[in-house]
C-alpha cells in the first residue's frame, strides 16, 4: 500500500512537471507579443482594426479607426503617426502639423522597439535625412528581421529604386511573415507579370482581389493581366466590377476603352466615352485623352496615316505620347510627313527634359527610331534598335505590355523584311505565347508601305 502511494505520488509529480513544462512553453511562445504601447485596450483594438483595414486598402475605414484610437488614448503616439499617414491633403494642414508635432516630440522611452523605429524613421524622413532613415531601417531589420512594417519599408524602397529582383525577394519574405499584406501581393503580381509568369501573376492578383474584393484596384490589377493575355471578356468583367466599386477609377475606364479598341469596336469605345462623361467623374483632361486615343487608334487601324496624324495634332492630344504618339509618329512617317514625325520625337525629348522622365521615354524614343530605320530600309539597324528596345521592356502593365508587343511586332516586320524568317518566327512565337489574338492581328496590319510590301503570306509566317 505504501509503495503504491509512493508510486502514485511520483506519477502525480511527474504529471505536474509535464503540465508545468507545457505551460511554460506556451507562455514562452506567446511572450513579447505586445508591440503597441497603450494602457487602453479599446484604443489598442481600434488600432489593430485600423491596421487590418489599412492592409486591405480600406483607407477611410482605417482613418476612422486610427482617429478613434487617438481619441481613446491621447498619448497613443503610434496611432497618431498612423493617422497622420492616412490624412490626405484635404484635411486641414493645421491638424496634420499638430499630429506631426506631437509625434516628433513624443517620448520614446516607454515605447516598443517597433514603435521607436517607426517614429525615428518618420523623424528622419521628415528632416529629409534619408541616409539616417536607411541606417535606421537596416539596423532595425538586423535586430527584427521579421517585422513586417520594417520589411515593407525595405520592399517599397527597393521597388522605388527599381531593384526589382531585390524587391521581389523582399515582398516574398513579407508575405511569408504576413500573407495579408495586400500591397505586397499586388506588387508581387506585377513582378510576376513583368517576367511573363502569367499563372503566378494571376494567383497573386486573385489573392489580392480575395483580400480586398470591395476595392477597385485589385480588380483593375487582375484586369490588366487578363487584358494583356487576351482574356478580354474576363478583363471586361473585372474592370466593370472595379468601376462599379469606384466609378471615378479612371485607369479602369482607360483600360475598358483599350479593350474596345483592341476589339476594333469603335462604337463601344465611344459609348464608353459617353459613360465616362456621364458617370465617370474623371478629370476633363482624362476624358479628352481618351477621345484622342480613340480617334488616333481608329485612323491607325484603318491605315489612314493622314487622319491618324491629324487626330494626334488636334489640341486634345497635346503632349500625350504613349501609344497615341507612336501611332501618330508612324502615321506621319508613312504619310511622308517626316518633319511632323521628327516633331513627335522632339516633343518626346522635350517631355524627357521637362518632366525628368528618363528610361520610359527613351525606350519609346528608341522604338520610334527603330520604326524609322525600318521605314528607311536600314533593316539590320532597325532590328538591332528594336531588339534592344524589346530587351529593355517588360510586361509591367497592360499598357507597357502592349507597347512591348508593339515593339516585337515592329521587330518581326524588320526581321521579315530583312529575310531573317527564322528569327522573325521566333519573335512571333513569343508574341503568340502572350496574346495569340494580338499577335495575329498586329502582324497582319499594313503598318507602312515597306512592311506591307514585305509582308509574307500567313502560311509563310507560321512556317518561319
Amino acid at each position, binding site marked *: 500500500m505504501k509503495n503504491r502511494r*509512493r*508510486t502514485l505520488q511520483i*506519477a502525480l509529480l511527474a504529471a505536474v512537471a509535464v503540465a508545468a513544462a507545457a505551460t511554460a512553453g506556451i507562455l514562452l511562445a506567446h511572450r513579447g507579443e505586445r508591440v503597441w504601447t497603450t494602457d487602453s485596450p479599446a484604443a489598442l483594438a481600434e488600432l489593430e482594426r485600423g491596421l487590418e483595414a489599412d492592409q486591405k486598402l480600406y483607407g477611410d475605414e482605417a482613418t476612422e479607426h486610427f482617429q478613434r484610437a487617438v481619441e481613446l488614448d491621447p498619448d497613443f503616439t503610434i496611432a497618431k503617426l498612423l493617422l497622420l499617414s492616412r490624412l490626405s491633403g484635404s484635411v486641414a494642414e493645421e491638424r496634420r502639423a499638430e499630429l506631426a508635432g506631437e509625434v516628433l516630440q513624443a517620448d520614446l522611452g516607454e515605447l516598443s522597439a517597433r514603435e521607436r523605429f517607426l517614429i525615428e524613421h518618420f523623424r528622419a524622413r521628415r528632416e529629409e535625412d534619408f541616409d539616417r532613415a536607411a541606417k535606421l531601417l537596416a539596423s532595425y531589420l538586423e535586430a527584427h528581421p521579421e517585422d513586417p512594417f520594417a520589411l515593407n519599408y525595405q520592399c517599397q524602397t527597393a521597388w522605388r529604386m527599381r531593384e526589382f529582383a531585390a524587391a521581389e525577394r523582399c515582398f516574398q519574405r513579407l508575405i511569408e511573415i504576413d*500573407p495579408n499584406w495586400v500591397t505586397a501581393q499586388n506588387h508581387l503580381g506585377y513582378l510576376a507579370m513583368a517576367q511573363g509568369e502569367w499563372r503566378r501573376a494571376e494567383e497573386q492578383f486573385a*489573392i489580392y482581389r*480575395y483580400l480586398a474584393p470591395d476595392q477597385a484596384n485589385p480588380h483593375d490589377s487582375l484586369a490588366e493581366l487578363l487584358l494583356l493575355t487576351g482574356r478580354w471578356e474576363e478583363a471586361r468583367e473585372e474592370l466593370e466590377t472595379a468601376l462599379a466599386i469606384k466609378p471615378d477609377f479612371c485607369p479602369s475606364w482607360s483600360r475598358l476603352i483599350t479593350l474596345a479598341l483592341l476589339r476594333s469596336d469603335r462604337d463601344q469605345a465611344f459609348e464608353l466615352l459617353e459613360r465616362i462623361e456621364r458617370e465617370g467623374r474623371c478629370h476633363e483632361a482624362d476624358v479628352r485623352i481618351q477621345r484622342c486615343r480613340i480617334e488616333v487608334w481608329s485612323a491607325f487601324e484603318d491605315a489612314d496615316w493622314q487622319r491618324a496624324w491629324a487626330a494626334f495634332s488636334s489640341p486634345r492630344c497635346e503632349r500625350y505620347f504613349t501609344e497615341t504618339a507612336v501611332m501618330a509618329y508612324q502615321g506621319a512617317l508613312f504619310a511622308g510627313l517626316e518633319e511632323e514625325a521628327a516633331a513627335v520625337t522632339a516633343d518626346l525629348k522635350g517631355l524627357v527634359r521637362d518632366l525628368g522622365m528618363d528610361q520610359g521615354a527613351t525606350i519609346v524614343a528608341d522604338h520610334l527610331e527603330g520604326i524609322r530605320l525600318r521605314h528607311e530600309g536600314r533593316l539590320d539597324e532597325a532590328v538591332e534598335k528594336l531588339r534592344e528596345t524589346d530587351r529593355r521592356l517588360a510586361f509591367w502593365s497592360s499598357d507597357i505590355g502592349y507597347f512591348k508587343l508593339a515593339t516585337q511586332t515592329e521587330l518581326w516586320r524588320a526581321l521579315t523584311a530583312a529575310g531573317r524568317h527564322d528569327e522573325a518566327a521566333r519573335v512571333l512565337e513569343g508574341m503568340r505565347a502572350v496574346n495569340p489574338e494580338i499577335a495575329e492581328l498586329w502582324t497582319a496590319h499594313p503598318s507602312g508601305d515597306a512592311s506591307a510590301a514585305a509582308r509574307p503570306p500567313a502560311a509563310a509566317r507560321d512556317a518561319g
Partner: protein
Amino acid sequence: MTPRATTAVLYALGLAAFLLAGLSIVDMYLPRPYDGVVLESDALGELKVRAVVPGSGADRAGIRAGDRIVGIARTLLRSPADAAELLNRREIGETVAYFVRRPGGEWRDVPVQLGRRQIGDTSYLSACLLGFSFFFIGLFVLRQRPDLPASRVLFWVCTLFLLVLVCRLRPASYSRVDSLVLHTGTGALVLLPASFLHFFLIFPRAVWEGPWGRRLGALARPRPRGLLIAGLYLVPVAVLAVAVGTKLAEGERPALVSGAPPANWWLMALFTIAGLAVLAANARRLGSLRERRGAMAVLAGSTLGLLPILTLAVGFPELLEREGWFLVGVLPMALIPLSFAWAIVRYQLLNVRLILRRSLLYTVTTALVTGLYALGIASVNGIFRGAGIAESRYFPLLFALTILLLFEPLRRQVQVPVDRFFFAERLRLQRAMVDLGRQLSARLDPAAVVRDLVEELPQLLGLRFAALYLLRGGRFERVAGPPDLPEQLELPGEVFRRLSGRTVLARLDELETPRRSDAEPVTETSGLLVRLAASGVEVMGALATSRRRIGVVLLSSRHGQTVPLEQEELELLQGLLDQAAIALETSVLLDERARQAELERELEIAAAIQLSLLPDHIELGPGWRVAASCRPARHVGGDFYSVIAGPSPGAKALVYGDVAGKSVPGALMMMMAKELLHSLALSHGDPGELFDLANRRLYDLHQRGFVALGYLAPAEGGRLRYLIAGQPRPLRRTAAGGIEPLPLSDHRLPVGALAAGGYRALDVELAPGELLVLYSDGVDEARSPAGEEFGEERLRHVIAAAPADPEAVVEAVLAALAEFTRGEEPYDDLTLLAVQRLPDSPAGGGAR
C-alpha cells in the same frame, strides 16, 4: 532508474496520453462554428481538404477533397490555427468568404455558411475504441504486475497505440488542439515500432538471457543493453529528422503518410519484422508447449494485425485516404491486443475474462449514457425550441457533463444484470466459494476444516490437488496433501509474514526475493519454491489470524493446465483461507479450553487435599491459644503452617512457610518443605539447627526454590522461642493494647536461598493475655483494586482494634483484608496466625 520510478513515469506518461486523447475527442465535439472541412493531416502547413462533411456549408459551397483552403474571411491563412482563430470569431449560421484553390490551379472565392461542429466518422470511431482498448489492457497489466519489465513495456506500447489511433488518426480541422494532438500522434507513430521491438526483446523471455544474449556477451551487462534500447528509440527519430529536415532544407514539403515520411514507414516495417522475428526465435526456445503456443498466438495476431496497415502505408499510401481502405488497414489491428491478452493470460499476467467483463459492462453503460444524452438533447431541443437554452453552444457540453456524472451510478446498476447475463458460470463459482466459506466458518472440528480445504476446494476449482501444512512446534507439518510434497515445509518467517500480509494468494514467483545481481547466490527460499513448482504447486496462501500463525495452504494448477487461477479467484480464495484460519483457531481454542477445565478440576482436588493437610486445630501446650488461617492465591498455594516436634521431647512447635512460586509448583515445594521440617524436627530440637539443616537440603536441590519460614515454640515462664527466616516480623499486642514488632536475628534469609546457614532463635516473653500475630507477606502486601498495599501500619491498627482473642484477631484481619481488596482474587498466598498467652495460666513450657 528503479523499477518503481519507471512505473511512476509510465503512469505519468499514460495519464498525459489519456488526457490528450480525451482532449482530442472532447475538442472535436465542442460546439463551435464549423464549415464541414476535414483537413489532410499529412499536408504540413497547408489546409488541404481530405473530406467534406456531407450537407455542411463547405459541401454546399462546392468545396471538395483535394482543394486547398487558402483564405477565410478575407484573410490568408498561414496555418490551421489561423483558421481556428478566424472561425472562432464567427457565429454559427454566419456566411464567410473562403478562398480555395482547386487541384488544377483554379481559384475560387466561395461563400461558406458555418454550421455546428460535427466531425468524426465510422473509421475514426473504430480507431478510438481500438486505441482505448489498447490503453486499458496495458494499464490493467501494469497494475497487476508492475514488477515485470514486460508489463511496463507493454503499457508503453499500448499508450503509443492509443496516441496513434486516437490522436494521429483524428480528422483534422482547424482547432488549435489539432496541431498538438496530431504531432503527438506522429511522435507516437514513429516510436511505436521501436517499442514493439523492445517488447519482443524481453517477452516472453529476455533475449539476453537466451543463447544469443550469452553469445553476444555484452548484452549480459545492463549498460550496453540500456544503450541498445535507447538506440532503438533514437533511430526512428533520427530518420524522421533527416527525412523531414532534408526536404525542408530543399524548400520542399516532405511527403507524409499519416504524419510520417515513407522512410519511417519502411523503418517501421523493418522494426516490426525484426520484432516478429525475435518473437518467433524466442518462441522456439520456450520450455513448454503451452508457452510456445502462446507466443505463436502473439506472433500470428501481431503479423495479421500489422500486415494490412504496413502494406497500405508503404505500398499504397493513397488508399489510406479512402474510408473503406482505411478500415481495412486499421480494423485488423484489433488482433494485436487480443493476441497479446491471450498470450499474457497464458503467462498469468492478465485476466482476460475480467477484461471482457469490464469491457462489456462499460460498453453497455456507455450505450445507456449515450442514449440518455441523445434523448436529453432531443427533448430539450423539442421542448425549448427557439429558446436560448437549446441554441446555446454550452448547453450540450453542460448536459454531457451532467450525464457523465450519472455514469458511475448507472454502471453500478448495470453491473448485476450484465454479470448475470454474461457470467452465469462465474457467478455460480463465486456463490459456491461463498457457501464453502460459510461452511468453514461453522466448522468446529479441525478435521472437517482440513477436509474442506484439501478435498472440496480443489473439486470446486478444478484443481489437481491442495495441501495443508499446520504449524506445530515451530515447523510447518503436512497434515494433508499429496505424498510427493515435503513432510515439513522449511518456510522462513519473513516469507510467512509476507504471505500473511497479502490480501490475495501468492503465485510462487511472487514470493521470490529478487536478486540484486546474477552473482548473488540462490536463496533457500528460491530452492524451496523451485521444488514446490516442480511438484505442481501454483499458488500459496497463509492460514493466520491476528493472534496466531496456523499454517499454509498450497494449491496446484487446474486440471490440464488450461486456464490459470485468475486474480479474482485468488482474492476469493484468500477470503476463504481467512475463514478457515478462524475456524481452525476456534477449534484449537476449544481444545485448549477443555484441557484447562480438566486441569482446573484437578487443581480443585489438589487444593482440597492441601487444605486437608493443614491442622484443623493447633495446640501448643497449656497456657497458649492459637488461631490460624491459610488461603492460597490460586487453587493450590505455596503457604502452609504446621505443628512439628518442639525443642524438647514432647514439646510442640509451630512452623509456617511461604514457598517461592505458586500454583502446582509452589504446592509441591510446600509439601516437600513441610515434610522436611517434620522429619528433621524429630531429631533436631534446636530451631537454629533445624533451619540450618533444612536450608542445606533445600539449597542442594538446585531447584532455585526457597521457603520463607517462621518458627514458634513455647518455652519456660511464658516465653516463646521464635525464628523468622524471610517472613515478616511478628507483631506483639501488649496487654495495654499497643502493637510492637518483635526483634529479628541477624541471619533471616529464606531457607534454601543461600548455601550458608547460621540461623539463631530468639526468645520473647508474653504477659498473660498478650497476643503475638505471625503472618506471611500475602497479608501486608495484599493490594486494593487501585494497586495500594495493605501494609504493616494498617495491619497494626486492625490488630489493635480487635478483641483480645486469637480467633477474633484472625477474623478481624481477614475481614479488613477482604474489605481492602474488595473481594479481588488475592495477589499472593495468605497465612495468618495469632498466639495468645492465656491470662489464667502459668504458661509453662513443654507439651502437655
